[in-house]
């Protein structure tokens, strides 16, 4: 009886070990990726921390100069005041700072501004990232939709005026940086025609609720979205064109043509749908990139986004915020990569086998 119980227990344990071991063995590609991701995260933290220390410019002097200008007090008074106001002790060694910083990260604390102890990386993420995501995800959505339509048509009709116009557009829009498009749009539609607001995210004189508020937000976001989209459309169109050209050689396209289906139907039902699959992965990765924002574009539209705050932190040499925001962005990118890679592996057994 005793032996039988022991044997039973052994069998159960063996089963558990086999199942768990099997799970880990089958998903070893995932653990390997998680391991790589953790190493990358660590390296990003280390590089982020030490690279910032190499930046030229003394933050205390800069802060004191600003205080002196703002408060119209002599610079030496401003300097003394600055040392009181700063959440930064220049006498602590870099290594001690690194240890403190890493300990904070392990507790989920990405960092606090040198200049204000109530401004944290989490606060910036909470207050500014939604605006960045709002504008850039809408721009991504618009440019993706327009891009795939344009690319699909370019692949199907490779000659003609439409193709020529599309190519010209892609070359022109790609050659001009996005912020320049922003400036052009502001000049034409904001300053000259005065159709759209030239800065900000909404009008303070409105009540912060309901449709009027939402419409006002969209109204303010219109030019930034257009500026972002103008540049991105070309990229999606070219990717779509490349993918669609491959699909055009497939039998089902010939079959559809042979069945006498209309051009429109062939493009929408067969060509576009089948060409879209490779682009979906790129779309997922592009979404991760959005988290970084676009400092120049946000600055031009004075849009309160994540990128402009990051840029401001660099301008004021707010070391703690810079490193926190850099590490946060690295985290997002690495995690997005990890998810995309893992999903790919789960979906496609060939990738999994190769990785193993």
């Amino acid at each position, binding site marked *: 009886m005793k032996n039988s119980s022991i044997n039973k227990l052994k069998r159960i344990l063996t089963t558990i070990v086999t199942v768990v071991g099997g799970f880990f063995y089958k998903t070893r590609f995932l653990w390997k990726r998680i391991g790589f991701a953790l190493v990358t995260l660590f390296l990003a933290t280390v590089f982020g921390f030490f690279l910032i220390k190499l930046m030229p410019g*003394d933050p205390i002097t800069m802060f004191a100069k600003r205080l002196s200008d703002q408060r119209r007090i002599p610079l030496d008074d401003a300097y003394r005041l600055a040392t009181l106001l700063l959440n930064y002790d220049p006498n602590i060694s870099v290594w001690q700072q690194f240890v403190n910083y890493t300990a904070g990260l392990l507790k989920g604390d990405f960092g606090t501004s040198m200049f204000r102890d109530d401004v944290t990386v989490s606060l910036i993420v909470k207050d500014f990232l939604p605006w960045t995501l709002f504008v850039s995800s809408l721009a991504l959505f618009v440019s993706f939709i327009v891009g795939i339509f344009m690319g699909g048509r370019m692949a199907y009709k490779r000659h003609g005026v439409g193709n020529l116009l599309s190519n010209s557009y892609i070359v022109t829009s790609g050659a001009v940086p996005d912020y320049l498009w922003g400036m052009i749009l502001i000049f034409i539609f*904001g300053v000259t025609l005065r159709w759209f607001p030239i800065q900000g995210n909404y009008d303070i004189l409105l009540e912060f609720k309901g449709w009027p508020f939402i419409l006002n937000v969209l109204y303010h976001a219109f030019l930034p979205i257009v500026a972002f989209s103008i540049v991105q459309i070309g990229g999606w169109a070219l990717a779509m064109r490349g993918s669609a050209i491959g699909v055009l050689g497939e039998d089902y396209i010939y079959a559809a043509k042979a069945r006498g289906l209309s051009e429109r139907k062939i493009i929408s039902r067969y060509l576009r749908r089948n060409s879209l699959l490779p682009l979906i992965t790129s779309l997922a990765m592009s979404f991760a990139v959005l988290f970084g924002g676009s400092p120049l574009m946000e600055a031009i539209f004075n849009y309160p986004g994540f990128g402009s705050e990051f840029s401001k932190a660099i301008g004021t040499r707010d070391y703690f915020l810079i490193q926190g925001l850099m590490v946060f962005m690295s985290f997002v990118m690495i995690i997005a990569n990890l998810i995309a890679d893992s999903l790919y592996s789960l979906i496609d057994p060939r990738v999994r086998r190769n990785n193993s």
Partner: protein
Amino acid sequence: MLSKIKKTLFVVTTALILAACGPSTASSGEINPDDYVFRINKTWDRTGIRNHYHGGSNTGPIEWLSVEPLVQYIRSTDELHYLLAEEIVHNEDHTSTIKIRENAKWHTGEDFVADDVLAFFHINFVSVVNYLAKPLEKIDDKTVKVTWKEWMEPNEHVKNLLLAETKVGSVQYSVFKTYIDACQTILKSQERAPIGYKDWAPFGYINSKESETLYMQNYNSFKAINPRTFMATGPYKVDRVTQNQMVLVKNKDYYFADNVKFGQILAYNTPDINGVYNLLSTDKIDYQDGLAPEATLNSILNQNKKLAHLKMFDPGAIGLVFNMEKDIWSDKVREAFQYIFDREEMKNSGNKYGITSHYPLMGMAPSEAEAWMAKPDFERITKYNFDQTKATQLLQAAGWTKVGGKWQVNGNNVKLSLGYDGGHPGMSGVAEGVSSTLNTFGIELVLKRAADFGTWFDSAKTEESVYDFVVNWTDLNMSFSYPTGSFNYVLNDINGPIMHLPRFTQEDFDNGVITEEKLVGQTNISLPKADGSGDTFLISEYLPTMYSLTEEELHAKLADMVLGLATKNYGLSFYQNVTGSFINKDLIANLPLQEYIEQNRNVTHVPSVGSDEFYAVARTNFYFSQGILFSKGYYIPKV
């Protein structure tokens, strides 16, 4: 079906993001659409504002329109306006009596009282007033007595300006009682300074390291407090704040409420200068300080016909400052450089509207030197004209030779590097002008552009700097125009480290070269006295005494300092800066220089120092006069 799900997901995501993008500060008051609105741009922290001036945040327009001093001075003219103080009487017995305005109130409705004045000076223990005064006394709820240390007592003029420099209406004792009382306790636990003690000793108590640490801890706790509403006394109350806009509404209980004719201030938070120009062009703001490049300025005025641009002296001069650490700057070479440049051209490269200066670096901007010095002394300052023949003679006398059109020293081509702050348009223009002149003259020049002030200053002050000389403010007063501010800028704060002037060391003290230890680290420069006696004086000994001088003594010391510095040729000024302001002339009824505005909205007439127009134009400048614009009714809307 899939398409419907996608659409729904898109709508839900957009709605969620919009919901997350809420306002940063909710509305607390009603906006009356019938009120006159004045619209400005002044940046504040988008990450949020703490509800008191000392909270560590940049509060933007609140600082100028809500937080008040006892007396307000107007930059460049030093004109005084009594605000929270009804009067300040300076008595014979080394005391000053501050009489607080009876109806001065905090925005919460509570009285502004003597305890609040004491609270301000105690929590801000680094203030110059604390350094010069003995413990303050509350006489009654509306009266404070300041007793000055008689051995460092400033003159009356300086006393007023020092009291005007501090935003006293920012610390309400009843709210911050814990921290103010803690300050008092720390203060009284320290050693009393003996009579005649001139080192740092706030209210006559010597700070120990331990007490400074306690002060800092207490100050940081004080800083972190966030009252429910912004703590202030001024003409406007904070109504609502978002990341990009702010609304301030008139404080109806304000003691000068009758003077305040605008019901609301709508402020934009646009840091980018091109964004500001767009706001001006599209009639979104009614005011903006500063100049713009000529083409931009005219373009803005063409696009917005409501605007006029007035100009006024800025108490600073721009030019070149030599790095004396470099052997190349011998006396003769420095003098030669005074003659190389056509200063009119250099001025046009930096600021077309500036006033050309023919002076060397002298410690004070020309307009200030003229205003403060005795006339005969001012007229003795050497002026330099464009004379490259003279420059050539001086350089040859210094051992330089010109070979194949290039200047050489000891057989090597002279190659200089010029550093400048690329973020300052005037300085960038001057750097280009200098480069062009020197290259034509045969001196090879490398321009080293720094992205911002911090980077530039860091590189300029470092030992063995890569800059041989820099473009900078040669003479500048950051605060009120009393000469000490400018001398400090030139000799200690900014230009001193850039020029790498010699300083007294601990060794000098140990070896008896200097008798006072506090001179260690101070500039070791002797200058000839202006009286022609051949005697010299140490500038480090002159500077600390300047607050306490009578008018006659001040004239004598200014002559010594300015004429002495001018003989050294440590730098050269190209122009006295002129600044300006865009103002909506259709909105403001009582602007000065109307006849000029009617002729040309880009008014190029710069009123001379001390004239009525000089005062009138300075009063209209928001940066110069801050809340005075409204509390004294200098801005009245056109009805």
